[in-house]
Structures are given as C-alpha cells and as structure tokens.
C-alpha cells in the first residue's frame, strides 16, 4: 500500500515535470548585443545608426577602401614601387595578378559587402514607419550614393560585374555578371536620385557625410569615364559654381578643414589618422624604408618648382638608398589629434574633369583656364593657348601630379586614355597584355558562383 502511494506521487511528480516541459523553456531572449531587424530602423535615431554603421565600416582600417585599394591601384599603375616581399602586393607591381590574389579578393569583398549593407539599409528604411519623411529622403540618398560609389569601383576594375540591388541571397548567389553598360546606367540612376535627395548643406559636421555636390562629383567622374563630355562638364561646372568650395593653398589641402573637400571619411580606427597615411609613410626608425615608395617616373614627372613635389612628397634615406614617398597625409600613427580625414572627392579633381571634358569638346581656351587654376595653385606658370593634344597630354600630366595615390586616379586615367599598354608595358616585369586592363575576378567567387565567368587572360 505504501509503495502504491510512493508510486502514484512519484508518477504525478514526473508527469508534472514532463508536462511542464513546454516549449517556453527553449524560448530564449534576443541576444543583448544585437537588435532584431524589425526593430532596427524604428526611428530617426536608429536609422542614423544604420547609415553610420556603413560609414564606419568603410572608414575602418581593415576595409580596403580606407587604404589598400589606393595602394594596389598605385602599384598596378606606375605610381608606386615596393620594398617588401608580400607576393600579393608584388603581383600588382609586376603586373601579373593571379586570380587567387588576396588583395583582389579583399577589394571585391569590401565593395560587395558595403553594397549589401546599403541594400539592406534601403530595404529597412522602405519598410519602416517610424522614420520621418525628411530623414528618410536624406538617408536613402546617402545610401544610394554609397552604393553607386562601390559599383563605380567594381565596374572600372573588373568590367562586367553582378549588379545586385536586393538582399535575397537565393537570387544573389547565382547572379551572373551584368553588362558594364547596365552597371553604369544603374550608377547614374542612383547618383541622379542621390543628388536630388540631398541638399547643398551637409547633414553633419566636417563634411564627413555627403551633400548633393558629392553625388554630383561622382556623377561627373562617371560621365567622364564614359566619355560623356558634355554631361561631365555640366556636373563639374555646377559644383564649381557653388560658393561652398574653393582651392586651398597647397600645404592645407589634406587637412580636415580644407575648403576644397567635397566629401571626406572620418577615420574611426584606433591609433590611426588615415589608414592611407599609415601605409604610405615610412616608420620613424632610421632603418625603415617606406614600404611603397614613389616610382621613379612619378618622382621625375614634376616640373621644377612644383609645390606638390615639395609639399606632397618627401624622401628618406635608408643606408645608401633614397626613397621618395607620398606625403599628402602626414600622420602615420596615432589618433589624437585627429587632423586628417580620408578625402573622397575634392574640388581640384572636378576642375581637371571639367578641363578634360572641355578639351575633348574642343573648348581649348576654357580647358586651359581650368588647367591654369591647378597649375597656379601648384606654383607653376600659366599655360598659353595650345593644341588640343597638348592640352590633353598636359591634363594627364596634371592629373598624375595632382591626384597621385588618391583612389586609383592614375590607373583610371590611363584606362580612360587607353594608355595602359604604352605606359605600363615597358615597366612591368611580368609583361603587359591588353587583358591586363581588367583585374581577375577572385578565384573564391568563381568557385562559389558557377554563373561567374573569369576575365580574359586569367
């Protein structure tokens, strides 16, 4: 009898235990350090956090956008030499990039991840009801500018690239390469929408988030690259007519207060001003040569008395060798004080864009006027009227001296002028082929997406 009672009570106890094993127990709270997507952009503040996350990732020292993209394009063109031994850098220097190159993969990954962030952000904004109308318009435009910016680099470096505007991985994972023309069209559409969604006033201090002129600055660059001279000229002219900007004196162009800056990224990483400065400047120890010194051809290209040579480059002698190096940004390490931001667009480029667009349209005098603005700031004498070809050659030369080590400008100029083979052919130990105009798609991407094809020559 006693046992029976035991049995019963025990049975009831166990039944209770098992019944209480309802699904509540395995329902866990959301992680403390993350937000569920539905709540992510519930108001203006969290939407602002969304766009800030994207800028922060672009400006992070680990992103190739903040440093290595500038360096590898400089190595691949005729701007930089190389004193270290990493093979993935050496491949750019020698002009024989392999599809497995880690830097190629890194640039591709950073650009596409940023595109995903903007796509996710745009979808989140579109689905949000708590974000105010003005903020929605502003942030949508910023995100479109960033997306266009990334596609601009993808399409110029790799040619046809997958044009992805959604976050659905099922579609995106086997998305094939889109025709260059379609990509350029998408970039243009994004930029026109961005320019109309953004105001002339900057949304935050220090020009660290873009205004409408930033969108137009990229648009003029895109038109130029597409040889759409009239539109390039019109965009650049509109920027140049704004009272916000003016050429700074040569010694102050790369400071964060520069009046010439159209958009700059504020450095975020520990122990850094710009990551680009960190990469290009040599360490303080006497034995340390700059890892990426300037090429002899770039050093020699400056005309006598060019302030850019004296102010924007420097040299260091290690044992018996003297290395010239880029010194636009002067601060190599340390984050306090924070004096230098990474300039994305500045007025000088727009002047050169307009000059080139004008020269191509036969407006030689106007082009020379623009050119002389740049020459004058560099402490050089003004040019008089000249032949179209002379002006165009002078433009290539001025771009080389003005925009060296900035966002691959030299490489894109050579591409646009179709001078890659004539200029780089004699310089590259690995030999130069016509197909070298485009980088190889990363091997890991080709392996992961069967619809991707490799560029010719790789």
């Amino acid at each position, binding site marked *: 009898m006693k046992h029976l009672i035991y049995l019963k009570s025990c049975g009831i106890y*166990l039944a209770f235990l098992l019944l209480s094993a309802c699904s509540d127990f395995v329902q866990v709270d959301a992680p403390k350090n993350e937000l569920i997507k539905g709540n992510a952009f519930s108001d203006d503040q969290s939407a602002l956090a969304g*766009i800030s996350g994207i800028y922060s990732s672009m400006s992070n020292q680990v992103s190739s956008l903040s440093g290595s993209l500038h360096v590898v394009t400089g190595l691949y063109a005729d701007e930089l030499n190389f004193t270290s*031994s990493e093979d993935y850098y050496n491949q750019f220097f020698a002009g024989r990039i392999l599809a497995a190159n880690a830097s190629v993969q890194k640039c591709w990954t950073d650009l596409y991840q940023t595109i995903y962030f903007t796509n996710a952000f745009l979808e989140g904004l579109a689905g949000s009801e708590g974000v105010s109308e003005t903020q929605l318009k502003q942030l949508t435009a910023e995100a479109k500018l960033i997306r266009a910016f990334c596609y601009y680099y993808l399409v110029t470096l790799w040619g046809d690239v997958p044009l992805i505007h959604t976050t659905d991985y099922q579609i995106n994972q086997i998305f094939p390469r889109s025709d260059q023309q379609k990509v350029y069209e998408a970039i243009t559409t994004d930029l026109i929408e961005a320019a109309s969604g953004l105001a002339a006033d900057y949304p935050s201090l220090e020009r660290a988030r873009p205004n409408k002129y930033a969108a137009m600055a990229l648009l003029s660059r895109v038109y130029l690259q597409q040889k759409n001279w009239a539109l390039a000229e019109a965009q650049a002219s509109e920027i140049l007519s704004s009272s916000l900007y003016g050429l700074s004196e040569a010694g102050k162009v790369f400071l964060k207060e520069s009046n010439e800056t159209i958009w700059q990224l504020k450095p975020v990483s520990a122990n850094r001003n710009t990551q680009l400065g960190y990469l290009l400047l040599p360490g303080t120890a006497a034995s340390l040569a700059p890892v990426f010194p300037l090429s002899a051809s770039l050093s020699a290209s400056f005309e006598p008395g060019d302030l850019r040579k004296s102010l924007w480059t420097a040299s260091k002698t290690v044992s018996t060798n003297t290395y010239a190096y880029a010194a636009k940004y002067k601060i190599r390490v340390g984050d306090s004080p924070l004096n230098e931001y990474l300039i994305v667009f500045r007025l000088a480029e727009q002047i050169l864009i307009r000059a080139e667009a004008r020269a191509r349209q036969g407006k030689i005098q106007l082009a020379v006027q623009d050119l002389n603005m740049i020459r004058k700031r560099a402490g050089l004498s003004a040019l008089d009227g000249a032949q179209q070809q002379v002006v165009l050659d002078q433009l290539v030369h001025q771009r080389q001296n003005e925009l060296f080590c900035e966002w691959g400008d030299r490489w894109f100029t050579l591409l646009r002028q179709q001078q890659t083979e004539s200029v780089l052919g004699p310089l590259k130990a690995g030999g130069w082929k016509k197909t070298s105009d485009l980088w190889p798609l990363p091997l890991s991407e080709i392996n992961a997406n069967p619809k991707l094809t490799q560029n010719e020559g790789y």
Partner: protein
Amino acid sequence: MNSLYCFLGKLCLYISYLILYLLFCAGEPANGQNAYILKGRIVSADNQERLVGASILLKGSNNGTSSDKNGLFSLSVPGDRAALVLSFIGYRSVDTMISFPLHQELTIALSPDAAALDETIIIGYGTTTKKLNTGNVGRINAQEIARQPVGNPLAALAGRIPGLVITPFSGLPGSNYTVAIRGQNSISNGNEPFYIVDGVPYVSNSMSQVNGTSGQQSPFSSINPSDIESIEVLKDADATAIYGSRGSNGVILITTKKGKEGKTRAELTVYKGIGHVTRTMELMSTDQYLAMRREAFANDGILPSITNAPDLLSWDPKQYTDWKKLLIGNAAQIEDVQLALSGGTQSTQLRLSGGFHRETTVFPGSLGSKRGSMQLSVGHRSSDNKFQANFTANYSASSSDMIPADITGSIYSAPNTPVNSNDGSGPLAGILTLRQSFQNLTHSLVSNLSMFYHLNANLSLKVSGGYTKIDLGETAIYPGNSYAVARPSGNSAFGQNNFQSWLAEPQLLYTKKLGNGKLDGLLGASWQQDLSDRTIMNASGYSSEMLLGTPSGASVLTVSANNTQYRYQAAFARLNYNYDGRYIVNLTGRRDGSSRFGPGRKFATFGAVGAAWLFSEETFVSRALPFLSFGKIRASYGVTGNDKIGDYQYLDTYAGAQYPYQGVSGLLPTRLFNADYGWETNYKLEWAMDLGFVHDRIRLSVSQFTNRSSNQLLSYVLPVQTGFPGITRNLPAAVKNKGWEFELQTVNIQKKNLRWNTAVNLSVARNELTKFDGLENSSYASRYQIGEPLNIKKLYHYLGVNPQTGTYSFDLEQGQNVVRDMSPTFYGGFSSDLHYKRLELNLFFQFSKRVAPTYLYSLTATPGLRGYNQPVALLDRWQQPADQTDIQRFTTGAAEPATAYGTYYRNSDAAYLPVSFLRLKNVSLSYDLIAARNEKTFIERCSIFLRCQNLFTLTNYQGNDPEVTNMSTLPPLRTLTAGLQFTF
C-alpha cells in the same frame, strides 16, 4: 597563481579533515559475534596455477590479507557468513559469499582480465557490460591513460578506439585536436562529438578568442588525465540515440575516478621528462641559399639590386644562422605530480586528488603552460541501501605564458639574415613574435550531484544535477618593436570568456523480472542552460610600453561583447529486455527541444532499437563449437540529430559596428538570415559480431556501420556578392559513412610470472556524398562531387617539369578534375602489454594511411623567392634545358614559374600524395621496487617507470611530420619521461 595554489592547499586541508571524520566516525560499528578463521587458496582459472599476492578483503571493512607464495591465505572472520572481495592485478575481481562451517578446502579461481566481458561500461544514463551491451561502445581505462605522459586526455585516445580519429593541431602544450567519430556526417562545421564529463555536457569547441601560439586552446587541457577512470566512446544508434539531437557525431563520456570501498590508499606519482622536435627537413646552407638566389636571378634574367636582393648584396655572405636550432631546437620540460587519496566504508566512499602538470616549449625562452587541478568525489549510501548520493567536483586552474603565434614557419628564414635585423617581413616574422607575449588563465569547475532513492524493489528515483563553469582570460601583448615596421607604441588584446552551464535531470528507473527475463526501464527529463559571455578588448595608444599588460593604460580601447544563451530540454526513455541471458532488446527514444532553432522548428523526436543474441549461451552452439567461449551478434538502427550550429542563427539581427562614426554608434547586419531551418538527421545502422575463443583468451569484434546524414544543416558557402560569405540553411544533400571496424585481443602467454597480451584495432571507412540536388548550380559545384567523399580536393593533373622551360606543367585542358580523397584510407593501433614478474612493458603503435599535402605544398613560398630558405631536397631542380627532374627552376617570382607553383602546382595532384605512417606512439616500462606491503615500511607498492611518446615513426612522408602535415606548424614532440609511483 600563488593565491590559487594557496587556496588549493587550504582546500586540501579541509578535505583531509573531512576524510578523517568520515573514516573514523562514520563507519558501521562491528558486532561482537564469534570469529572464524577462514583458510583458502587462490588459483588462476585457466591453468589452475596458484596466484601469489592476491588481495582478499572482507567486504565493507578494512579487514583483509593477501595470498602467500603457495597461493594460500587465512583470514579472521566475525560471524558465520562472510562477503569476500578477491582481486589480483591482471585478473577480474570476484565477489563471493562464504557460509561457515566449510565442508571442504576453499579454492577460488580468478579469471584473467583480458576476458573482461563483465567489465562495467558506462553508457548514456546507465551502465552495462561488454557482454550484455547491444550498442557499440569503445573504451579506454585509467591504466591506459596513465601510461601516456600527456597533458590532455584527448591525446590519450589517439589510435586506441576503432572509428575514432584524433588529429593534433600542433605539438604545443594546450593545442586543440580535431576529433571525429566514424567520419564526417555534416558537410560544414559541427562534426565534433558530444562530450559529457561525469554526466554533465562539456564544451566541445575551443573557448579561445585571442589566438595564442597553439591557435585555439583545447577545452580539455583543463581536465587532468590522471583523474579519469575511463573514457567511453559511443558510436552507434543504440548507444547515442539517448542523446537525441546531440548524438549524431557520436558521444564521448569522460568518467572521473571515484572512491572505492576498502582501506584508505594514498598514491603519489611523479614524473619528469623532456620533449624534442622529431622529424624536420634539412635546409640549405648559406652557400646553397645564395647560389639558389643567384640562379633565380639568372633564370629570370634580372640583375640583383640592393632593393630586390639585399640578401645577396648587403647581408654578410658568410653569416650562417641555424634558425631551426635557434627557434625550435630547444628541449621542452615536462613535469607532473599527482597525489590521490581514496578509500571508504560500505556506506561512504571518497576520493581526493590534487595534481600539477607543467610543460614548456621547444622555443627559446621559458615559455610554457601549467595546470593545477583537484578532484573530490564522495559517495554515500544509507544502511538499508535505499538512498544513495554521489558528488563529484573537478576543479582546475591552468595558465600559460606563450607567444601569440607559432614561430615554426620562421625556420625557413634565409640563413644569412642578420639576427638583429628589424626586417621582420616574410619568414623572419617569428623573431619579432618572440618579443610579443600571450598569456591565458583558465579556471574550470565541473561538478555533479546525483541522488538516488529506491522507492520499492522495482522502482527507483534518481535526480542528477550538474554545474559547469569555465572562465578563460587571455592577454596578448604586441610591443611596438615587435612589428616589422616598428611602431612608437604597442598594442594589446584582452579576451574574457565566461561560460556556465547547469543541467537538471530527474529520472525514474524500473526493473522487474518478467517471465524468464529481466526488464529495465528508464524514463527521464532534462533541462539545460548554457550562458556564455564574451568580451574582447583591443587596446592601443599606450603612453608607456610598460603598461601594455593592462587595458587601463590605453588611450584607445575598443570593446566588443557578445552574449549567448542556449537552452535545451528533453524527455527520454529506454526499455531493455533481457530474455534468459540470450536475447536482448533495447529501445531508446528522446524528444528534444533546442533554442537554436526558430519558432515551430524547436522540437524533434529521435530514437533507436538495438538487439543482441548471445548465441554461445545456446546449448546447441556450445555443443557444436566447444572452443567458442563467447558469441554475440548484435544490430542497431536509429536516428539522431545534430544541432551544432551557433546560437541565434535564425534571427535577422543588427549589431553594433566596431567603431562609432562621428560619435554615432553604427548598426550593421549581422548575417544573412533564414529562420526556417530544422534539424539535421543522422540514420545509423550497425551490425556486429563479438566472439571469444579458448576461455576468451582470443577475442574478436567485427562491426559494420552505415550512417546516413540528411537534411544537411550548415553554413552554406556563398559568393560574397550576396553580402556575406555564407548562410545557415538545410541542404537537400545526404552524406553516407560506411565502414568496418575490427578489434582483436589475445592473451598470448598467461603464466605465473609472465603474461603477454596484445590487441590490434583497424578501421576502414569511406565517406560519400550520395545526394545533392542541384549541386551543379550551387555554390558547392567546384568543391564536391556526388559519389565522392566530402573531404576531397579537385586538382589539376601534373605532367612533370617541362624540360625546355623548367617550369611545372599541367593538363590544363582537363581543368581541376583529378579527385583525391583526403580522409583516411585506414587507421588503427596495435598494443602489446608484457608483464614479467615485477616488470611491465607496454608498447602502443599507431598507424594510418591517407592523402595529405606534400611539404612543397605547405612551404608556400615559390623556391628562389627572397628571404625564404628551402629544403636541400629542392637542389634537385631544373637547371638547363633537357634536365629531367620533378623540381622546377628557381625564380625570384617571375610570372611563369610563380604561377606554375602558386596557382597550379599547389592545386595539382602532385601536391597531394598518399602518406602512411607507423608510429611508436607510446612506450611505458615500469618496474615494481616494492610489490606488496612490507611490515617495516608503510609503502604498499612502489614502482619506477619510463614513459615515452612518439619514440619513432616510419613513414613515406618527406616533410616534417606525417600527422601534422604542415611545415609551418610545430610537429608533435618526442617526449621521454621517467618517474616514480608510490602507493601507501
């Protein structure tokens, strides 16, 4: 650390008081009845030889004796009945009940231990014996572990259990292991077994956040191997289905030592030894290196200049540094001290132990790691045997003082590199690494309490609960002068990972004689919660290099924190029916819920059926086959699951960006999101036969298994154009693991003074991707192939060195179409245990055959490249047209040969070749200086021993180590240790 050891010391003291109390005050009072003198003889069951020194103990008392040189003993026994426990090393213990008066001389026969069919085996939520088990369970016991001077219990398993592959990451103390039971079931990660220590789930993945020298630290380096009684490896459905969703990859049960009834024994073991790197390749001398470089320049048609060839033009051509000797040529020191106290009465048993283990490295300096550990186990039962309680606690503190990276890769530095050069680029980075430091400290507590109450003759209630807490703190320091390009100030990284887990499991046990058989039932429930709290701080901007060890000195601090909560619940049941000791059926079932899955996907049911037929118990069999002493056929089939994916993967979340932008904390998407994934299921089928011949002196087990995993749940690799490199989802794919396992144990010689046992195990298995809908169009198209194993490489076919150009050539038209299976073809171990009088010699060989990357693959630098020294074997290179060789010409990095090596050779069938090895993994030689209690000393047993790991290796592998086939990873060391063991 000092305060910790002080604390440990105090705790030992308190526990000693407790033992004394229990021993002297808690024992049962003796009653005052008449005493008999019991006389008898102890012999060996198989040849009737008398056994000298066998122990005879009156159960539940300290009253005992041992047999004399004629095998005779006499013992004074109170009362007219006596329960005796008879034991002898190498023989199975016998429990027997004697009633007085005796009518004839008492002779007790002990059976040799090799035939330990009745040995207890731990299984999920219970025990069984080898004889009655319907499932497949591999086991190693405390003696086998003790013979190996290893710091990590996983290391002791290598080669010993069929179906289990254990591969070390490196030869550094604390380094992690890859563990796989019966192959790879899941395509992506999540192939680790489920680990349980004393009934409580233990972490299977490394908790490291800041990588140290040995990469990820093994969580098992916190567990003292000397405290382990046995490690059971559960393999088939019958054994693993009771663990439901977590049993898919097999289960490893670690059971720590418990106190045993009997007189109090203290055991002290001390050993000390050294370790060296074994096999390395001979590298070029300075002359050879410089000649290689000059030849490379000549081959490429480039003139050496000060920028591209400082090694030729500015470094001293006479300088020679043996980087190998300097960096990895030192002797590692190993020290180990263990003290254990155990004993108890019939009602209360106790074991208390403390241990200390220290290992240094072969690197320069005094780097190393150490562990102090303590274990307490108490068991108590009431005098009516109705109530039982057991408590076990294992506590350890381990610390290491290492460097943040393995510097083995730096032995390939150019031999004339200036030693104090700051040029830390390329292979010389290791010199700079030595200026850095990596420290960690782990505190680990694993505790378990179980209470057991017999409600009546058939029914008992058991409740067990466990609590585990592991805290890992890590500090990595990178001084400014440790960078290739020196920095004005250094930086540090601090990691803190706190893990805690609790578990509660009420169970109802039922046992009843039913007809001619016995029915055992188990019904239980389980609740578990794991909380993990991780923080990483990266600190920089220090005002002084002296402050690098603390985050408070940093002006810039970035913190990333991560919390996860995992909850798990289950109800499980087992029904076992044993009919007449001949037919056994075992049914298990489990319903599981896990927080790792999204709503509607949290629960699933698993189960298995196992059956065994002990045909040797049938009279017709024993008549027809008298030489067969044991015969069993068993089979099992069932389904288990795998939930080894991260937490919260089903949520679409945003997390804080690493840094704020303009003072605004950013948000970024955490992952691509898929809420709708479910369990991965694993169907396991096994059949097996266990045979024993000649009084079980020869025992053979053969098992065949077929495991099929479907509904593959994994992080699916995506092209990064999707935004992320992967996503968690169920794949329409199925993986099959099929294999055979053989075990043969023989007692070759069984004499009074000489015993020799051998055992061999062999596993042959094949993994196959049987189904993958839409593989061609998936992102896996280039990695897998239906009908081939998961672990394959698709490679170019190598055509040799082109005699004209001197570069490697390949069949590029065919593309990467040569398939090489990287999983082991076969593997196993062979052990020999020899006892001669007081001498014992144990040998253990491990063997394996598989395809592995060649040395040339893992050197990674194209031969001839600046700064990289190369093995002398490469001197057999192409030099001029028409040379026939397998090594291409040296190059400074010119396009054609660099591509041939970097892009093609390393992805060709020439870089992946079959590697087989036979390794004398362990030798243990011990001699008993004192073998039985001596009246004059209080020492019961004293032995001296030599224990060695990795004594020699026979292999066809050209590189450093055939097990760790990576030239830049420190290979497992050869260790030689010597020590003493005392039993008091």
